[in-house]
């Protein structure tokens, strides 16, 4: 506990140092284009399409936050701050919540936000059982059950307020809106043939309620490989890049600015009954005992990850430290020796399918196989797109039924209850007949998670933060520790007069601009 607390303190101190102390304090400047590079090849700016927990949703949320606002937000000190809602109150049972909306808020096209817009937007996003209605300039959310963590829920994830335009596109009230790409006034999205990158340009919303952002625009390049991002950052071609964990050490050694979030990405194994061998609890126990999470986190991921022993991270649940994951090869071998003949003697190995994208997930999958082999359990790794080569005789076809899946999960909700149930729902852990936890009581959540872990249908592996590389020009970089960027606060410290967007006489009329990426932005 002391260790976790000291780490958290160091993290906060670090962020403060980055924000205020790294360079001589200067007055924030307006203007400039913030160049951002991201790994994903496509994004969606429609919160209705986002799938909770996916890595893609993480990027979607980051870019969505440029265009849309939530009712409330959470600051780095754990305090809820007003956004589109200025006040809120609830009944004693936490079943009825009323939010007073901020006045004079305008969408990017200049039209005013009203309660009906909020109701229409959130109605599509709220889970079943929660009703939302407009009462004057207020919106009311009611539920048959208690909603003690509704603010956490609304302050994170996809709960953005938007308006659907007649053409089906969405617009928001956020500090930016999707503008035309450089050299192309007809489309907000352009695709480069080299490396199949996609460019998105977000332009500053002059009339946003929170005040005009410092930068004139944010140019986002999608589909940039991690190493390329690092090079671009070094060469000054990008101001802000996503750093993959394996490059963090290198970036640090090369004196680049690196920021890391709290562990928001989770890697784990989940078993299903597609293979007989995977359905056996003893096999799951033996596999669990064989896993060497310390080496995974400290060697394979070069100390850029934490061994995970719980489904929810400590910063989210507060009780994760209560869980431990034992590594005991000898015990695993003993269990393996007691397996029934149809499971142990079967010629079919346990197939592990790496569902998560990226080399990191593949590396973890291979390590799981190596660990399991130590316990005399044969595990065959199946990649999502296994290359067909002459020497892949032992690699099973990706079409074969796999008993184990290596999955990745991105924590997107600030409500541990919502996050846990989203995970359970997405992967169907545990007994489906068991009711979901309705309370945010930590004890109930702990019991629920403990039961899930004891079943060993899901085995935590590691949890990783998100890493961001920053150029020296980026100032006032103050993201949320759970990974949400606040790019409206960022300004660029560029001595020369910065380029402005478009022509001097091209004062945007936001009403005429599309507010979100048109269809095709995400294949």
């Amino acid at each position: 506990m002391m260790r976790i607390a000291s780490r958290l303190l160091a993290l906060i101190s670090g962020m403060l140092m980055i924000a205020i102390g790294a360079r001589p304090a200067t007055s924030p400047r307006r203007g400039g284009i913030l160049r951002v590079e991201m790994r994903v090849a496509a994004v969606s700016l429609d919160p209705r399409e986002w799938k909770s927990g996916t890595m893609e949703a993480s990027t979607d949320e980051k870019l969505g936050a440029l265009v849309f606002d939530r009712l409330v937000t959470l600051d780095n000190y754990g305090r809820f701050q007003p956004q589109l809602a200025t006040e809120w109150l609830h009944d004693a049972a936490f079943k009825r919540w009323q939010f007073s909306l901020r006045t004079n808020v305008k969408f990017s096209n200049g039209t005013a936000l009203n309660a009906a817009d909020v109701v229409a937007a959130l109605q599509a996003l709220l889970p079943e059982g929660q009703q939302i209605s407009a009462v004057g300039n207020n919106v009311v959310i009611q539920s048959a059950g208690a909603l003690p963590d509704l603010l956490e829920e609304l302050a994170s994830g996809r709960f953005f307020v938007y308006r659907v335009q007649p053409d089906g596109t969405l617009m928001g009230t956020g500090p930016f809106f999707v503008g035309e790409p450089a050299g192309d006034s007809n489309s907000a999205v352009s695709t480069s043939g080299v490396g199949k990158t996609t460019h998105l340009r977000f332009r500053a919303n002059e009339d946003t309620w929170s005040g005009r952002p410092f930068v004139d625009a944010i140019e986002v390049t999608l589909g940039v490989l991690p190493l390329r991002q690092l090079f671009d950052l070094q060469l000054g071609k990008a101001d802000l890049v996503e750093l993959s964990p394996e490059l963090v050490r290198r970036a640090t050694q090369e004196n680049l600015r690196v920021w890391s979030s709290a562990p928001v990405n989770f890697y784990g194994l989940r078993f299903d009954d597609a293979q007989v061998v995977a359905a056996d609890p003893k096999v799951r126990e033996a596999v669990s005992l064989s896993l060497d999470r310390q080496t995974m986190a400290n060697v394979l991921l070069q100390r850029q990850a934490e061994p995970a022993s719980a489904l929810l991270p400590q910063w989210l649940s507060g009780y994760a430290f209560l869980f431990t994951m034992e590594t005991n090869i000898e015990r695993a071998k003993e269990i393996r020796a007691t397996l029934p003949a149809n499971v142990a003697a079967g010629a079919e190995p346990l197939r592990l399918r790496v569902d998560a994208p990226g080399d990191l997930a593949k590396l973890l999958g291979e390590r799981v196989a190596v660990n399991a082999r130590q316990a005399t359990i044969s595990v065959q790794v199946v990649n999502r797109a296994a290359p067909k080569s002459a020497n892949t005789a032992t690699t099973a076809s990706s079409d074969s039924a796999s008993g184990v899946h290596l999955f990745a999960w991105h924590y997107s909700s600030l409500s541990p209850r919502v996050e846990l149930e989203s995970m359970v729902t997405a992967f169907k852990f545990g007994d489906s007949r068991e009711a979901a936890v309705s309370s945010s009581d930590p004890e109930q959540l702990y019991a629920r998670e403990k039961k899930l872990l004891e079943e060993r249908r899901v085995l935590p592996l590691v949890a990783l933060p998100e890493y961001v590389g920053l150029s020296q020009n980026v100032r006032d970089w103050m993201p949320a520790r759970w990974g949400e960027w606040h790019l409206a606060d960022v300004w660029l410290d560029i001595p020369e007069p910065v380029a402005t967007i478009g022509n001097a006489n091209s004062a945007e009329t936001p009403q005429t601009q599309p507010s979100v990426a048109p269809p095709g932005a995400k294949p």
Partner: protein
Amino acid sequence: MSFRTKLLLVVLLTIFASVSVVAYGVTHYTQAAFESMDAERTEALVAQFKKEFAQRGDEIARQAKNVADANFTEKMAIDLSHPNADLSLYFRDANGAAQDHGLDFAEFVKYDGVLVSSAQYPARVGYKNDWVTSVKEWNDTPAFLRKEELSDGVALSLTVVRTNSTVADKSLYVVAGRRMDQNFLASLVLPAGMRALIYTNLEPTFSAASLLADKIDAEQAERFAPLVEQLQKQPQPMVRTIEWTRDPADAETFHAIPLMGRSNELLGVFFVGSSRKELVLLTRQILKIAAAVAAAALLIGMLVSFWVSARITKPVEELAEGARRVAGGRWDTRIDVHGNDEIGQLAEAFNEMTQTLEAQKERLVQTERVAAWRELARRLAHELRNPLFPMQITVENLQKARQLDAKQFLEVFHESTATLRAELANLNTIVSRFSDFSKMPAPQFVRVNVNEALRNAVRLFEPQFNEVGKPTITPELFLTEPLPDIDADPDLLHRAFQNLVLNALDAMPAGGTLTLKTSENDGNVRIEVADTGKGLTPEECSRLFTPYYTTKLQGTGLGLAIVQSVVSDHHGTISVTSDEGRGTAFRIDLPQRQAGHAAPAREAVTEPNSTPPTMAAASG
């Protein structure tokens, strides 16, 4: 087959055999030369493989040495010598080393065998590689083959281990390697018609995917399975030919060289394939040329030998024709004599022989004629003497009776005149018989049923078969029905059959079986008459048809002469076979049709009453 044909065939066969022998010889020596060349090429390729293998190993060793001597490796060695060293600091270093030095495989192994960094299988970092620490001195060890474990299977690696000994007793091992794959094969310079393959023997059973080569599908790869399995049992170089299709030109000869690991385990097989297409096409070309040469030689040989054999065989053919004419009775045959060689001498000898034969025949005819006259005179004398002797006695008695009284004289006179008259009648009969034989009529041909004629002849003698007081003679008739009619004179035929039956009856005084058979034989009608008498000697047989020759006490010797005369007049043949003590058989073959005679319709053969009984009596 004529001599000329034989000669022709012999010449042709000789030419064919000569061409075949030459073609075989050329093919054989060409094949041997090709095999020798192929073996040399294979040897060169294997040598090139070994050289390339060694060069590649040296290159890897250099790279491994460079990595081991690099500053960062020294730093790593120093860091890792400390207890609780942070392995994560070097997790990616093997990858960088592999990329920088163009290696497929690179690993750093700590002094205690723990894998620090792995380019090819990073997931194994932290585990021990005991095989690395099992060798004390790696720096002088050349490259060796190794089964490299990868995340997606196994690979064959040409591996070198070098050490960094910056920290004494805590060496850092650098394991470097390159994959033995198609890139390696691509580096070999292959002569036309040859190819190289590598089988990575890393799976427990044969795997077609483990056969690395250009342009080889799974089905073809499977054909290597028996060869690989044999090598797995007995890893030593061997040669096999694989026939890809039924066409021998598609066959390929593979020299297999086992590739062994450090522990002498079979890790791979290097195959050098040599197409047999060139050899087969060359052989086919030689055979085609040989066939063309043989055909031309046979044609020319046939023409030449035809001409030569014609020149050689013409005198021989003339000789043969002359011999045939001589055999046909033309003793005056002479042939032309060409040259003075053996054939000419043979022709001269032939002419002399026919000349001599003709003279001898003339002499023989004259001798026979004299003998015949003598025999005739003897018979005549004998025949005439029989009645003359009683006549002489009677005349002498009559002279003596002149002294008797008239009554007695008259009585003697009457007796004597009666005797004289009787003997004169005998003389007359004898003369008539000789006269009849000399006056045998020319046959008048009509269609005659031989079976009927035979039955009629037998029927004539039926009373004599069972004559009281005499031994019984049993006639047995085996007559083929239907038997074609023949052109014959029925009366003459009847006389001939009658004489034969009578002759048989005379031959069986003690009784026996008379057998008569008819049959159709090769366009002729065959008649056989056999008895079970005492038989004849060969000498008797040879003289049997001579007129006036008889073996009987009472006989003129004209019966069988008449039979022969009748048969001869009908253009037939007669022969006799006899076993002494078992009987005699006569065989007559008569042609069905007589040339130049349009025989009238069949005449009913009746028993001729006009047959003079004397003929029967005179036979024998």
